């Protein structure tokens, strides 16, 4: 099923064998896409968050299928565990959970779906037209912690360290924006408003 060319490196494949897809891939993809659609269409932001968490779970399952076990765990911990909780927290804090946003006009929905659909169609058509060339050379065990840790501490040491700058600036930034200035009564107002 791999078609190698005379150099044995480049392989062209086309989406032609849907019938032989493994069941687990199909089911997972189905869940992923469905929950993702729910994220973007749900009127209640809290539902969106929950659906997004479901999406992340199914993506984590994909990672396991893809031999990226460590990534699957990290994905759950970071995204579903930390980031999504942060989202939920903010939603609760700002009391946005019940508030459903005004629905946009149909025209706008059509425009948005056409635009997004065009991106999908263009990319798909491009891949269909000239075929996808990727270099395969399967090997085992790359997604395990042992291997990843080694690479992270050797090959990727510099970006690993420099991402510290990213974190410190994100932290300082969040504090800068979030902290209350002495002369500002805004947050007090907010609390009163929420209580009322």
């Amino acid at each position, binding site marked *: 099923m791999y078609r190698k060319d005379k150099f044995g490196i480049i392989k062209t494949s086309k989406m032609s064998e849907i019938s032989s897809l493994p069941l687990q891939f199909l089911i997972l993809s189905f869940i992923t896409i469905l929950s993702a659609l729910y994220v973007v269409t749900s009127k209640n932001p809290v539902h969106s968050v929950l659906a997004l968490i479901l999406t992340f779970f199914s993506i984590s399952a994909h990672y396991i299928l893809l031999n990226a076990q460590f990534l699957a765990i990290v994905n759950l911990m970071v995204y579903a565990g930390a980031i999504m909780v942060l989202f939920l927290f903010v939603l609760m804090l700002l009391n946005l959970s019940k508030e459903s946003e005004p629905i946009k006009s149909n025209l*706008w929905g059509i*425009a*948005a779906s056409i*635009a*997004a659909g*065009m*991106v999908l169609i*263009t*990319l798909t*058509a*491009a891949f269909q*037209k000239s075929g996808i060339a990727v270099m395969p050379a399967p090997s085992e065990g790359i997604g395990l912690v042992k291997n990843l840790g080694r690479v992270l501490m050797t090959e990727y040491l510099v970006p690993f360290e420099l991402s510290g700058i990213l974190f410190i600036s994100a932290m300082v930034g969040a504090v800068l924006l979030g902290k209350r200035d002495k002369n500002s009564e805004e947050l007090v107002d907010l609390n009163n408003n929420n209580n009322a």
Partner: protein
Amino acid sequence: MNPIILILGLPLLGFIINGVLGNKLPKIVVGAIGTAAVLGAFVIAILNWSIISQPENNTINLDLFTFLQIDQLSLKVAFQLDRLSIWMTLIITGIGTLIHLYSISYMKEDEGFYKFFAYLNFFIFNMLLLVLGSNFLMMFFGWEGVGLCSYLLIGFWYKNEDYGKAARKAFIMNRIGDLGLLLGMFLIISQFGSLDYSVVFTQIAAGNTSNSMLTAISLLLFVGATGKSAQIPLFTWLPDAMAGPTPVSALIHAATMVTAGIYLTVRCQVLFALSPLTNEIILWVGLGTAVMAALVGLKQNDIKKVLAYSTVSQLGFMFVALGTGAYTTALFHVTTHAFFKALLFLGAGSVIHGMHHEQDIRHMGGLKSKMPLTHLTFLIGTLAISGFPLLSGFFSKDEILTAVFMHNKVAYALLVGSALLTTIYMFRLYFLTFHGQYRNHHYAFEKVHESPINMTLPLMVLAVLSIVGGALNLPAYLTHSEGFLFNWLKPLFMIPQSIHEIDHSTEYVLIGIAVLIFVTGFLIARNIFVTKATIPAETSTGLGGLLQNKFYVDEFYHKVFVRPLEITSSILHDLFDGLILRAFTFGIFPLLKLIGRLNKKVQNGNLEMYLLYMVIAIVLLLGVNLIFA
């Protein structure tokens, strides 16, 4: 350190210090800095004389950097100190020093004192740039720089509107000439692919260039020279330039800047020597200028105007020499003229100073007793310029006359006439100023005073130089060998100058004629202005009126060039401003504004729209370039 850096750097430094800090420094310090900077350059040039004067053609080179590199053409900032440029450097800095010294007293009362010295130093810097550059570009920079300084200094008393106009006139006339020079440089680039003297001249000397091209280039360069050196038809600015302070007239408009055209021609000797047609044109233009200016000089009443026309006339003499191929002679006359004309101008300045800004010679007279030193030195200057035997002017002028005699007898006759006129108008000036009755009713005779020592000292130095300056290039009949300057410049010329073989009897006849001219001129002037004690009338009629009004050249230019230009420009103004610009303003510009307003609709502040536009753009980029490409 390379001496060129110092020679150029000192005046520049003086300019910067005086320009930046001048208004905070006491006047005496400003003057001292300005003078010292030029003196320093002079001393350094003197110290390097021995290096240059080695028997082989020695030059000191300074290549600083490449200014611009356009394909093959590299424009370099590079300088050379060779026999010609050191000669010019010595004249510029030597006379420059004296004039700086003189200016300290002369400009003492002026509030723009520091500005004056800064400009003067900057002028010296630019003039040195002009003569020291080793390519046409550097020369052009200096050329433009001196033009700028001249403009600034003529209009130094810019609050007087006429002075401002004179400055503008000088600038515009110079620009016309510069255009010729610039076109010449473009031709040189297209022809030789370089602006370096060495490259260009070597190629010309090799003889690979067509004659018509050489003629075209040399004619264009000569147009540049006529502008800077005030030849017909671009001479009218120089008399007006006398609006500037008198030291400026002495330095810029007599001794140095106006000789830039002669320097250019001597520098490009190989080019001009190979273009006979240009030489002939130069000869006749120079001759015409010499005669015409001398005639006008006869009837001028402003002490500085007389000297200005005399300068124009003498520059004509120099161009006549160039036209006959006597390059050394021309440079010799540049040198001697620098001595005695600077002397005369400074003397005139001293008179003006002593008379409290009176410039009209009809209101002078009898100053001999009140200003003995000025009188004496002025007399020496007058004698020198008139060709009194054995003074400097005698030798240089005689050489020119000899060269022209060998070349063309008609031209000789005309030039002799011009020399006669020179003697007459110079002695007219001298007699009217220093002899006869004191004729000024506004300023008491008792108040007329001699100038202070640092004004008379330069006068005395220049007077000595005017007497002995002839020694720089003594004629063969005295020393039985070629003159010093001739030998000095000999290694420089790629095409040897023709030596005028002339038998001694003819030569003595020519000298005799020269002496005769002087005596005749002197006697005529004496007869009219001393014996008959004629005072020039306010207005003359007939020929006199023609002369007094400078042949109506200014009026002619106004009618022929300025008015049509004004009319054309007003028509064009109507056309462009009225039609095309209006079409632009009411057509294209609103179109642009319309697009701008459309953009306003797009840039409506709505984030969602922005995102949508971006996605559409991505779709287009991907679609067009992945699917349809």
